[in-house]
């Protein structure tokens, strides 16, 4: 700092830099004491110090003026955490390329967070539509693999339906074999989770095409999201009954899929 060392206690007043350093507590202890001694003898400097201290305190109050929006901190935390997750997911943590790859992802996450605050519902619908469609397709593809055998292998609805009792918080009816469209066979069933909810997965074949039918309880479902009618070459067919939501996934032609879904819907209505 500057040199207040040769301060003459009686004749030399504090220069502005020294005075400021003094009130900011920036002087070494020896200089600090020297000035304090000067102040005991100099009324003018004492007043200047007092005045400067007041101005400093008032500036502190006046300068602390702009408060962030109440949700700004939450948005920031969302951004930071997603950035950290991104960082963590990079296998080579010391790869310099990482620095550039995180940034768009972090900003995308931030954009998502802002969207969330603008329209929670709208965002949720959009989000769920996409993830739900992906989830449906994933599960359907999993049933196609030869190693995957359903927990219930039966063509008999009287075997399949009771199996779900106690496993699902809801019940449903299966159409009689005669009520199914031509060349449509029940192969088996599985208990699964869709969109965080327990679901019955019914496996059918129509003309040797595999069909997955997901049944979920309608009441506990969130706002009804629209599932796209096709995804990656597969047809997604949705229907609802007063209690159930039925989603079919298959690569069979949409008309045949419609018929199967319609027969399931029909089976739910009281005879």
């Amino acid at each position, binding site marked *: 700092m500057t040199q207040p060392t040769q301060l003459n206690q009686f004749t030399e007043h504090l220069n502005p830099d020294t005075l400021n350093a003094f009130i900011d507590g920036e002087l070494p202890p020896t200089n600090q004491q020297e000035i304090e001694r000067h102040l005991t003898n100099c009324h003018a400097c004492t007043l*200047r110090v007092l005045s400067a201290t007041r101005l400093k305190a008032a500036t502190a109050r006046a300068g602390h003026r702009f408060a962030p929006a109440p949700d700004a901190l939450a948005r920031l935390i969302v*951004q*930071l955490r997603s950035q950290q997750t991104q960082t963590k997911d990079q296998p080579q943590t010391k790869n310099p390329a990482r620095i550039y790859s995180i940034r768009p992802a972090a900003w995308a996450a931030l954009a998502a967070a802002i969207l969330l605050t603008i329209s929670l519902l709208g965002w949720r619908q959009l989000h769920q539509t996409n993830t739900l469609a992906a989830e449906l397709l994933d599960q359907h593809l999993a049933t196609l693999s030869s190693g995957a055998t359903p927990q219930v292998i039966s063509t008999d609805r009287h075997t399949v339906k009771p199996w779900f009792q106690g496993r699902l918080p809801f019940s449903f009816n299966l159409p009689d074999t005669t009520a199914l469209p031509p060349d449509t066979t029940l192969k088996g069933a599985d208990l699964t989770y869709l969109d965080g909810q327990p679901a019955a997965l019914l496996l059918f074949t129509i003309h040797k095409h595999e069909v997955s039918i997901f049944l979920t309880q309608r009441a506990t479902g969130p706002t009804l999201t629209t599932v796209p009618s096709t995804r990656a070459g597969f047809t997604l067919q949705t229907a609802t009954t007063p209690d159930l939501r039925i989603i079919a996934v298959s690569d069979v032609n949409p008309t045949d899929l419609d018929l199967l879904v319609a027969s399931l819907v029909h089976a739910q209505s009281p005879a």
Partner: protein
Amino acid sequence: MFHSQCLPVYAVSLLPRNLRQTEALRTMPSDLTRGADFEQLALPLFASLYNHAFWLTRNQAEAEDLVQETFSKALRAFDAFQSDTNFKAWIFRILRNTFLTTRAGIAASRTVFLEDHPDTLETTASGPTPEENLIRLDNQAALHAALEQLKPSLREVLLLCDVEEIKYKDIALILDVPIGTVMSRISRARSTLRQLLQQQLGESL
């Protein structure tokens, strides 16, 4: 969402470690604690950084963006942060440098810091200090107006010193100037502020 992704790593790291696990997970828990360390240091400064960002940008949305970007950069650069340096100064420096790359910041940096040139500095000006000053200095409305009128470079140094209570050596780090420049800017800022208050409140100040 994030917890569900973070928790399993913690959970696994608590298991008795066999060698392979240790190998695979060596960096991950430390990354996580590093992230937690960062948040612990940085989040309490959010309001301060926002206030300062608003003074720089004079705009709520820009201030928020600036703070977001500052945090993002700081987190990325946190590995380079030395624990013996002042974290507040470090992150304020990132805030300032980030601001200087924005359009508003580039415009602001074009206004040359004339007050740093010794010949324009009134180093001897001590200013009048009558007793009644002491009362008037508390006039917040007048002070707000005076701060608004202060040159950005002078306002900035005062905010760092008086509002954020950052030490001169750390202000020097933030502004990337010698400590002597910090001192002269503070002197200059306070005497200018005093003059501005004087104009508003009559000649008695």
